[in-house]
């Protein structure tokens, strides 16, 4: 059996259920999901596809947890004054709010958005797109998943402590029973050295999660370098893989600095070494350098894989060769490298020197160039294409739209004078939600829908998928667009209460978040019902030409059928496929010869 999150409900009608349980979801088909039985065959697997699925279950759970916190945050803000715990002392309520946004941020960043695309879709698709049997280091891949789970446990620990502590009004708990965490996801010193919440556990959690990320990066780099098939030079590498490659480079070069930051912060908490703590002679601005040297590149860990998904989806659903292949590929690398020289734009108001402020401001604006290169190439790809508005494409179009808004609002933040006004207002909140949720989440959903038939072997309900997609899009914009306006008017972020004149903005935003939540639950329902009772997916429902569509859905344990030696093909040449209506999918033309491109 599989670890599908949808185990059949209690055995109400024994007769039918027995048959179902015997045949499972796949009858007696032999694929990677049915290839081994029992929970251990999953927990000890080194099959990259299964590890991708295990990541999927955990990462979606993290998304769910982070989402609960988001809804709680928005609910607190629906009216001015105390909303969540009206019965409690005001201070308790405000402290609860600080914990909510801290856990929300940390869980979403470290447990959801960073692993989402590389660890789920990348793990599943990358080796197959290379025609390989597995990633270069399958055991490390499994270790990565265990690191992810281990690191996440620290956050569950903190979270439990926070819930229990708040409900029972506990104060000054020991480090192993922390009352949540209230530093924000950035753990700025000196606040993080002074607070009595769970900084120690959180830094350990982030450290371990960092290992998960690094191991994925090491694996992807070695795999892309060493396991490409015959006839696949770098110029035939699908753009998804180019962006995963660029992502891995960032994971390798940035994550270790996060690790040492967390170790130093841990030493600061446990031993009081004082490197970052001004009371002990340390330098809190240096902490911010450390933190953002990782965390700005990390926003590109989040966005680049999404851009890779979009490059695939836009081309496939326009039925046109991608426009500007080499520009898109090169801009991925450029973004990865540029991402390392702009971190100071998070520190314009921290006391960073005027010299570095101006240098970082200038460099930050230059990142907009490779981002724009991608957007224009996607638009040019769609131009004159035969566009199909299937669910993945709707998300992809949403991505382009929302990423453009998110990216463009980065520019006033990058300009020194305007940032003084916008910094720490809802304008920043709106900016980064447009790029992280509007872009990365949309890219993730596009990719999930796009590879869903391949991963599960089932088609989803297309109509429902589209309806939910529009709902997610509407809910998202309702929630966050208005925050640009509130922020421009000066509404500060990270406050549990606010001036009543901001009430209508917060109210609309909160309503939007409920719409968004319903939309996302709809998506989940769409997936679950597809897996349980969807139609069997054809090998190639979209007519795409990257190698994962050259093998059955779901793929066999060894990725390709025996005797099939995959070779590199031009990934965006769609002429070799014919739509066959009995198959409800595409079938390769007999004897089609690739011309190159």
């Amino acid at each position, binding site marked *: 059996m599989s670890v599908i999150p949808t185990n059949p409900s209690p055995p109400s009608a024994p007769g039918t259920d027995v048959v179902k349980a015997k045949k499972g979801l796949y009858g007696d088909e032999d694929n990677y999901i049915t290839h081994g039985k029992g929970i251990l065959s999953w927990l000890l697997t080194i099959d990259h596809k299964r590890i991708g699925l295990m990541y999927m279950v955990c990462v979606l759970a993290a998304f769910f947890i982070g989402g609960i916190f988001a809804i709680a945050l928005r609910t607190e803000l629906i009216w001015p004054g105390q909303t969540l715990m009206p019965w409690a002392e005001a201070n308790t309520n405000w402290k609860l709010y600080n914990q909510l946004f801290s856990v929300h941020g940390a869980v979403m960043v470290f447990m959801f958005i960073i692993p989402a695309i590389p660890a789920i879709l990348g793990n599943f698709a990358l080796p197959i797109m290379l025609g390989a049997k597995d990633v270069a280091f399958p055991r490390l891949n499994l270790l990565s998943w265990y690191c992810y789970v281990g690191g996440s446990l620290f956050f569950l620990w903190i979270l439990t402590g926070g819930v229990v502590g708040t409900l029972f009004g506990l104060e000054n708990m020991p480090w192993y029973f922390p009352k949540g965490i209230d530093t924000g996801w950035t753990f700025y010193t000196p606040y993080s050295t002074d607070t009595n919440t769970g900084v120690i556990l959180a830094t350990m959690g982030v450290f371990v999660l960092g290992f998960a990320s690094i191991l994925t990066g090491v694996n992807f780099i070695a795999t892309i370098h060493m396991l490409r*098939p015959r006839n696949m030079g770098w110029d035939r590498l699908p753009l998804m893989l180019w962006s995963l490659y660029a992502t891995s480079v960032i994971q390798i*070069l940035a994550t270790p600095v996060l690790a040492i930051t967390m170790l130093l912060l841990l030493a600061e908490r446990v031993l009081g070494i004082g490197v970052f703590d001004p009371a002990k002679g340390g330098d809190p601005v240096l902490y911010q350098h450390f933190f953002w040297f990782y965390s700005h590149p990390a926003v590109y860990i989040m966005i680049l894989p999404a851009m890779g998904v979009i490059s695939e989806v836009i081309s496939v659903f326009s039925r046109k060769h991608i426009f500007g292949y080499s520009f898109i590929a090169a801009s991925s690398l450029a973004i990865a490298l540029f991402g390392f020289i702009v971190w100071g734009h998070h520190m314009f108001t921290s006391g960073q020197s005027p010299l570095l402020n101006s240098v970082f401001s200038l460099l930050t604006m230059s990142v907009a160039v490779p981002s724009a290169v991608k957007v224009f190439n996607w638009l040019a790809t769609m131009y004159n294409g035969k566009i199909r508005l299937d669910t993945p494409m709707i998300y992809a179009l949403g991505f382009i739209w929302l990423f453009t808004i998110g990216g463009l609002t980065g520019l006033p933040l990058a300009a020194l004078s305007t940032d003084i006004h916008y910094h720490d207002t809802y304008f920043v909140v709106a900016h980064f939600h447009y790029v992280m949720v509007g872009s990365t989440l949309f890219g993730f959903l596009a990719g999930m829908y796009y590879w869903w038939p391949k991963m599960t072997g089932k088609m989803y309900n297309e109509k429902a998928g589209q309806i939910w997609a529009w709902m997610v899009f509407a809910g998202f914009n309702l929630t966050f667009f208005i925050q640009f306006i509130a922020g421009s008017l000066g509404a500060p972020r990270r406050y549990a209460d606010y001036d009543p004149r901001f009430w209508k903005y917060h109210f609309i935003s909160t309503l939007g978040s409920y719409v968004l939540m319903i939309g996302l639950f709809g998506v989940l329902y769409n997936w679950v019902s597809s897996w349980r009772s969807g139609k069997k997916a054809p090998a190639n429902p979209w007519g795409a030409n990257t190698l994962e569509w050259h093998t059955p859905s779901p793929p066999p344990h060894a990725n390709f059928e025996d005797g099939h030696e995959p070779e590199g093909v031009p990934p965006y040449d769609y002429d070799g496929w014919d739509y066959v209506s009995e198959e409800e999918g595409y079938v390769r033309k007999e004897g089609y010869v690739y011309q190159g491109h």
Partner: protein
Amino acid sequence: MSHDHAHDEHAPHAVPLGFLALIFGVLMVLTFVTVGVTKFDFGYSMNLVVAMAIALVKALLVGLYFMHLRWDAPINGFILVASLLFVTLFISFALLDTGAYAPTQAAAALRGSTP
């Protein structure tokens, strides 16, 4: 498997023992030199430069010969150099910044003019 890398089935390149010993000898000598050179004073900054130059030569010897970079696929050396470049980037920006604000505080605090 890709073909823009050379994967010819060559026998492993074993570094001659005498050569390894020679490198080891040079490394030891350089260790003595770096300690001995502290007897001479070239000024605070120059002393640091000299010490780092010697360390760099030692690092090069270890990297090229003990770690086989001299004979390895160039990508491995490239990874090493790239990681050093990024460390340099990090350190130099941080230095530039703290260098620009730290003495400011110190000077102002000395005047007793802190707010």
